[in-house]
């Protein structure tokens, strides 16, 4: 029989730093001890980090949901009902996934707005900004594919819109065409995009984004008197509060599911992040669905190229005006979309 060591309190205390050293050394945690600007510890600067933790929650809950989801068009809707009614904690996990996606879309929007307002995209951080714009676009694509996977009326209508959009964009839209291949359904391919292709692109862009932030630092002129290792627990603290919020929302307001989709009928509005596109469609027809995102994302892409002032000079007045108009149109479009009357878009 092994000898049982009963360490005194003092010995245990002496062991603590040694054990911490063991873990620190093997995980190279000292690499996280690099200097950063104290501004990074403000909540406004943590929105990107919070988005990242939200994405981790989405990945974890997404992996769990995917164990039960069936991407066969005939069985997809049933399998979502199965998750909601028969999988232990399935309804709550699905709710976490839904609310995490909403929280991530809000936090990434606030993060981009703050970065835009501070003009953090100017030289030498253009690529950091473009990686962020790419992440924003990929998140929209993931929100869209996630909506379609429900296979309810809203999902079916979203898919019909995407198919119509794919026809307008010619060869670029071919992957969204049901005739792209006969070996598998469009729903299966969108499921594949949602769980593998888009997350891979997302992780690659996050890697690039983080690398550039680490290499170029934040857009702050103050001396780097703080440390990342001190910043991380604070960020984690906020992330856990957000996780608790998502958990509470998922329990109190679990997302529902509509009736199975019927083709050729338009009677639902899209998931809230797409309501601004819905409003554009109301006024400009189906073409607006393609043109509006091109205008928004095109503007975000070119902004570092057109806003190249000398250090300390304010942003050009015209650019500021355009930015404000687009910001309020975007927010206003979402709010108006909630109250806008139902309208048929197909064939407009």
């Amino acid at each position: 029989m092994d000898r049982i060591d009963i360490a005194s309190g003092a010995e245990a205390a002496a062991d603590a730093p040694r054990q911490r050293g063991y873990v620190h050394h093997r995980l190279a945690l000292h690499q996280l001890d690099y200097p950063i600007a104290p501004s990074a510890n403000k909540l406004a600067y943590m929105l990107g980090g919070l988005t990242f933790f939200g994405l981790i929650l989405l990945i974890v809950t997404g992996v769990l949901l995917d164990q039960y989801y069936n991407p066969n068009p005939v069985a997809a809707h049933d399998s979502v009902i199965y998750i909601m009614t028969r999988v232990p904690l399935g309804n709550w996990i699905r709710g976490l996934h839904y609310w995490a996606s909403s929280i991530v879309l809000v936090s990434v929007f606030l993060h981009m707005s703050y970065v835009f307002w501070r003009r953090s995209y100017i030289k030498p951080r253009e690529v950091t900004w473009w990686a962020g714009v790419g992440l924003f676009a990929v998140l929209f694509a993931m929100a869209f594919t996630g909506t379609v996977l429900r296979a309810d009326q809203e999902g079916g209508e979203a898919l019909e819109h995407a198919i119509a959009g794919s026809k307008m964009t010619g060869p670029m839209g071919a992957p969204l065409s049901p005739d792209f291949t006969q070996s598998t359904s469009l729903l299966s391919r969108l499921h594949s995009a949602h769980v593998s292709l888009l997350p891979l692109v997302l992780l690659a862009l996050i890697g690039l984004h983080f690398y550039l932030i680490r290499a170029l630092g934040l857009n702050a002129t103050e001396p780097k008197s703080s440390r990342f290792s001190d910043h991380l627990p604070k960020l984690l603290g906020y992330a856990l509060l957000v996780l608790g919020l998502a958990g509470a929302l998922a329990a109190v307001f679990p997302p529902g599911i509509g009736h199975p989709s019927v083709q050729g009928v338009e009677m639902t509005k899209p998931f809230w992040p797409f309501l601004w596109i819905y409003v554009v469609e109301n006024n400009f027809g189906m073409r607006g669905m393609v043109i509006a995102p091109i205008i928004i994302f095109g503007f975000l892409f070119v902004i570092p190229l057109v806003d190249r002032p000398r250090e300390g000079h304010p942003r050009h007045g015209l650019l500021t005006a355009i930015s404000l108009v687009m910001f309020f149109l975007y927010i206003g479009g979402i709010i108006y979309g909630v109250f806008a009357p139902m309208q048929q878009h197909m064939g407009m």
Partner: protein
Amino acid sequence: MKRIIFATAALLLVTAAPAYPHGGGMIRLATTQVAGGGTVALTGEKLDKSADLALELRGTLDNYPVGRVRTDAAGKFTTNLTLPPNIPGGAYTLVAIAADGDVAARTDIDIGSAAGGSGTTMPGMAGNEGMHTADQISGPHASAEMMQLKRTTTTGEWGVIAVLTLLSFAAGAWLLSRSRRA
């Protein structure tokens, strides 16, 4: 450190060790595609000898008990299985359940609707098989409303949800207060 590794390995071995109390039982259907309300011949073998088994159809939306059988001294049985007439079409698993509740054998079965339709009561998506078009709807109708589902969260599940949510809030608040003090 070695003790931790050994303990972990032992724990993994114990939890990963497969247990087959009912052996490798098999059930076979004369055909794997049957309409609701139809009958299909069913045989079973390599099952527990002289044992009572409950037969159940397990689908995505619900389970349907479809009868009981008793194996002979060789662990075999033969029977004709009649499917419920109102069972929704779709993919099901037919399972034979032993007296202790374990699944002794299973096989897949594809059930079509009793009306002799495509077997699809839940449509899929636009441009795909299973999708209903507005002008050919006779069963389900398009609706913008949410489905009224009976979502049963057990007391235990509510407990897990409450504990995890409160732990997140508490850990987050603790980390923030510690950071502020530092």
